[in-house]
Structure formats: structure tokens, C-alpha cells
């Protein structure tokens, strides 16, 4: 008995390690975003052309006032990195809210009513899937001009399909369960049942989708900004930082390493958190 139980518990330990690591990373980034003005040692927009490309602290010729060095305009890299968390987190959270509203409404309605309504919902999801996201996002921002609001709106309107798929399938599972039938018998209205009976019972699945979408939105924003069609400079978006540093990367690779590693670690953290939450919620359901 104990022999059989051991691998499962070990796996759980490993998974919960992922949950903790992911949670810590996301928590730290969120902290940086909230308290950026207190944490950043310099103004992220202040230029000093006499102090361009100071190397970070682990290299030679560094300046202790600039722990991570300075960029091509002499702006403090650490400060820009810290302020950059604001853009990434804002994009991630706002996109998840927008796409979550669209996707969950569609999915719950389709899964709950079934039949023709569900056919329409499935059709909308299929249409959305066939649209090349990156291309359309680039085209929209290219046409309407780059701004943070527009990036959030575009990504929110494009990235809802996973919410819809998961909300739809989980609603289908829930709607035939006893407590929903009981609510019907008790004379509850449709909106009441949808909001008070169905939605709370599919939330755990949706939370996991939210982490995945947040990671995707942050990656896409960085990619759009990198191509010059996302958040416009001089905003310290990590994508903008990488694109500004691109010209110099062959001479001093650290200029693209610092924002790139930050982006990678944040996305990894969000994914770890999502994976960990999924397992945590799954074990919670079975026990």
C-alpha cells in the first residue's frame, strides 16, 4: 500500500514545487510592477549620453550606480526592467479579463443551451481558430497606430478561444449534475442557474486557462513591440528593450540577454503556476 502510494505523493511534491516556484516568480514580478517607483534606482526615461552601454555588475568597467548597466541612450537598465513589469503585467491581466469575458460567455452559453445555439458557438470558435493571430494583430496595430490600449484590445479580441472551448465542455459536464436539476426544480431562473450554479463550478478550470492566456498575451505583446507594432517607445516594454538593443547584440550580447531572460522567466513562472494549479485543483476534486 505504502509502496503504491509513494510515487503519487512524490509526484505531488514535485508538482507543488512547481506551484511554489511559479507563484513566487509571479508574485515578485507583481510586486515590482506595483512598487516600481520605489524599487527603481533611477528614472527609466532619463537619458545620459555620456554614460552609454555601461556593462552590468558582473563585467569589467561597471558603475555601481547602474547594477545592470545602461542602454544605448544611457538609461538605467535595471530601472527600465522594473518599469517593464508594469507593461507586461498590465497587458497580461487586461487581456485575460477581455478575452475571458468574451470566451467564457460564449462557451457557457453554448454548453448550457446546446443544440442550435451550441452549433453557432462552435462555428464562431472555428472561425476564430482559422484566423492567423499574429498577422491580424500586426495588421490592426499597423493600421490604427501603436498604443497600449490597442494592443490589449486586439489581443483580448483574438485570444478568447481557449476560454470558450474549456467553458463550453465543462458547462456541458456540469449542467446535468444533480444540484443544477435541483435548482431547476426549486424554480430558479436561467440567469440565476448560469451565474450561481454553473459558473462557480467551472471556475477552477477557467483559472488554469487564464494563466495560459496571460503567458501567451505577454509573449505576443513582447513580439509585437519587438517588431515595432506594439507598445511604442520610449515605454520600457521588454519587447521594446530587446528591439532597441538588437543593433548592439553582436558586440555586447548582454543587452538582449537581460530583458530576454526576464521575459522568459516570467512566462515560465506563469506556466508553472498554471500547471501547479491544475494538479492542485484536480487532486482537490478527487479527494
Amino acid at each position: 500500500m505504502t509502496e503504491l502510494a509513494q510515487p503519487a505523493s512524490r509526484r505531488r511534491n514535485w508538482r507543488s514545487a512547481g506551484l511554489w516556484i511559479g507563484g513566487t516568480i509571479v508574485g515578485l514580478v507583481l510586486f515590482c510592477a506595483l512598487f516600481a517607483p520605489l524599487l527603481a534606482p533611477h528614472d527609466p526615461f532619463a537619458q545620459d549620453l555620456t554614460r552609454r552601454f555601461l556593462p552590468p555588475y558582473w563585467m569589467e568597467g561597471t558603475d555601481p550606480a547602474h547594477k545592470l548597466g545602461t542602454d544605448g541612450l544611457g538609461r538605467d537598465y535595471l530601472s527600465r526592467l522594473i518599469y517593464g513589469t508594469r507593461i507586461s503585467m498590465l497587458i497580461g491581466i487586461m487581456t485575460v479579463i477581455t478575452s475571458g469575458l468574451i470566451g467564457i460567455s460564449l462557451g457557457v452559453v453554448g454548453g448550457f443551451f446546446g443544440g442550435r445555439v451550441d452549433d453557432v458557438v462552435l462555428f464562431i470558435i472555428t472561425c476564430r481558430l482559422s484566423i492567423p493571430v499574429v498577422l491580424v494583430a500586426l495588421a490592426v496595430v499597423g493600421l490604427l497606430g501603436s498604443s497600449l490600449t490597442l494592443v490589449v484590445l486586439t489581443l483580448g479580441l483574438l485570444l478568447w478561444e481557449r476560454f470558450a472551448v474549456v467553458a463550453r465542455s465543462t458547462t456541458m459536464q456540469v449542467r446535468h449534475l444533480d444540484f443544477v436539476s435541483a435548482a431547476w426544480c426549486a424554480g430558479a431562473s436561467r440567469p440565476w442557474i448560469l451565474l450561481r450554479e454553473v459558473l462557480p463550478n467551472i471556475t477552477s478550470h477557467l483559472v488554469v486557462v487564464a494563466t495560459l492566456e496571460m503567458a501567451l498575451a505577454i509573449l505576443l505583446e513582447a513580439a509585437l513591440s519587438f517588431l515595432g507594432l506594439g507598445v511604442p517607445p520610449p515605454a520600457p516594454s521588454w519587447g521594446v528593450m530587446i528591439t532597441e538593443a538588437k543593433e548592439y547584440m553582436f558586440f555586447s550580447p548582454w543587452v538582449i540577454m537581460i530583458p530576454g531572460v526576464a521575459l522568459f522567466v516570467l512566462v515560465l513562472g506563469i506556466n508553472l503556476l498554471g500547471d501547479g494549479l491544475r494538479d492542485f485543483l484536480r487532486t482537490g476534486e478527487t479527494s
Partner: protein
Amino acid sequence: MLRFLVRRLIVALLVTATVLTLAFALTRLSGDLAISIAGPNATDRDVELVRKAYGLDRPLIIQYLSWTGRALIGDFGESYFFKQRVATLIGDRMPITLTLGLVGLVIALVISLPLGILAAVREGTLIDRIVQIVALVGQAMPSFWLCLLLMIGFGLQLGWLPISGTGSWEHYVMPGIVLAFSAIPALTRLTRSGMIQALGADYIRTARAKGLSRLSILLKHALRNAAIPVVAIAAVQLGFMLGGSIVIETIFALHGVGYLAWESIAKNDFPVVQAVVLVLAVIYIGLTLAADLVNAVLDPRLRGA
């Protein structure tokens, strides 16, 4: 089977029609197209000339119908910037993007199939965990950043591969690797879970009882069954990859359809932009249709859906 086929085809056609409309609407988002085409320094007279020349003075519905009608027979009009037929432009660039997509898919399959099988066979061991961590890392890697890292590593420091451009096969290696990265996590996870499910099935126990070799059980019996969803997802992934190659093509200056789209967006060349959106969407619709049909042939249970 016939009913399934017809239904699936009708849905595919309806989706195509919707995408057609969306591609048209996309370019009308900015309001007045003529102002955008004429450029920031144009006078009112110039704008009026442009509006006449491109038929933008007609009612929107007429513009829509005329564009749709022509698009259906493969005529996307003329590029504003290149002064060439859009269809010719896309036709010239498409082989490059398709090659890149296939290279990416092959690299992704070569890496993710063995990894997925290995993880499934050694389920719950250290190897399984390492494979899952590799998938997580792949998922978190920003593709545009990976492009730059490969350029520095293979292009500059090792000098093995050209940093950018189009031409020889060597230009496809680095973009192919980056593109593969986007598909490896999903394919590895799917192979792993499919293999775990297949290895637990009754027919595997039967095969074991018959005394077949481990390798034969693994490859002939389990993998064949686990491969069905992987093939389907691989087709879908190829569609995503063609759409996602725009970033990679732009960075490596690989002159495929993605690069064309990026140039056209930067130059307000709307006929090209809407045509590329449409063509990529149609390719994706075709690929998913093909995947569904292959699945239905392989697994009769799916035909009811």
C-alpha cells in the same frame, strides 16, 4: 461517412466565407483607406485621385462584393507598392514559407516523438520529469528572442550558418529550429499522454502475453494508436506555424509570405495584407479539414460528431 463529409465541407465553406468578410473588414478598420494610401503629405486632390483610381468612391457593399467575387477566383487585385498582381507576389513567396513550415514541423516531430515516447515508457521517473521540464521551457521561450540568441550563437560566434537572407538550404536551419520550438511542447505532451493511454490498453497486455518483443509492442502496437491525435494536431500545428512564421521570417529576412505581409503592413499595402490573411486562413481550414477526414477514416467513432 458521406453525411459527415458533406457536413464538414459545408462548415469549412462557411468559415471561409466568414474569414473572407473579416479580411475585408480588417482593411476598412482605419476609416478612410484613400487617406492612408495617399500618405501623410497628400493634398485633398491627391486623396480624391487615389479614391477614384482604386474604386474607393463606390459604396462599401459594392467594394465588398467585387473584392469577394474576384478573391474567389484567386484575383486579389494589384499591390499598391510593388505594382504587381497580389496573386503573383504571394505565389512567388509561398514556396519559401511552406518549406520553412515543413522544415519546422519535421524538426518538431523528430524531437517531440522520441521525447514523448521516452517519457511515457518511463512514466513517473526522472526522465519523465526532465521531458516535461523541456516542454515547459520550450513553451516559455519567446521565439523572437530565440532567433536573436541563435544568430549570436550559430551565426556570429560559431559562424556555421548565415545570419539572414534567402537562398540556400542553410537559411532555413535557424528559422526552422525556432518555428519547431513553438510546436514541440504540445506535440511532446500529446505523444506522452497518448502513449501512456495506449500502453495501459488491453491489446498491449495481449501483445505482452503473446510474448512479443518490447520494441515491437512499443512501436507497432502502442505508437500506431497514439499517433492518431498526434497526426491531427501536427496538421493543425503546421497551420499555426505558417501564421506564426511572420515574426521569424521578418527577423531572419527570409523572403516568404510572412515577410511580405510585414512589409505590406509597414507600407499600408492593404490588398496584399488582406490577401495574405485570407490565404493563410484558407490553408489552415484545408489542413484541419484534412486532419478531420484522416481521423474519421482511422477512427469510425469520430464520424458521428
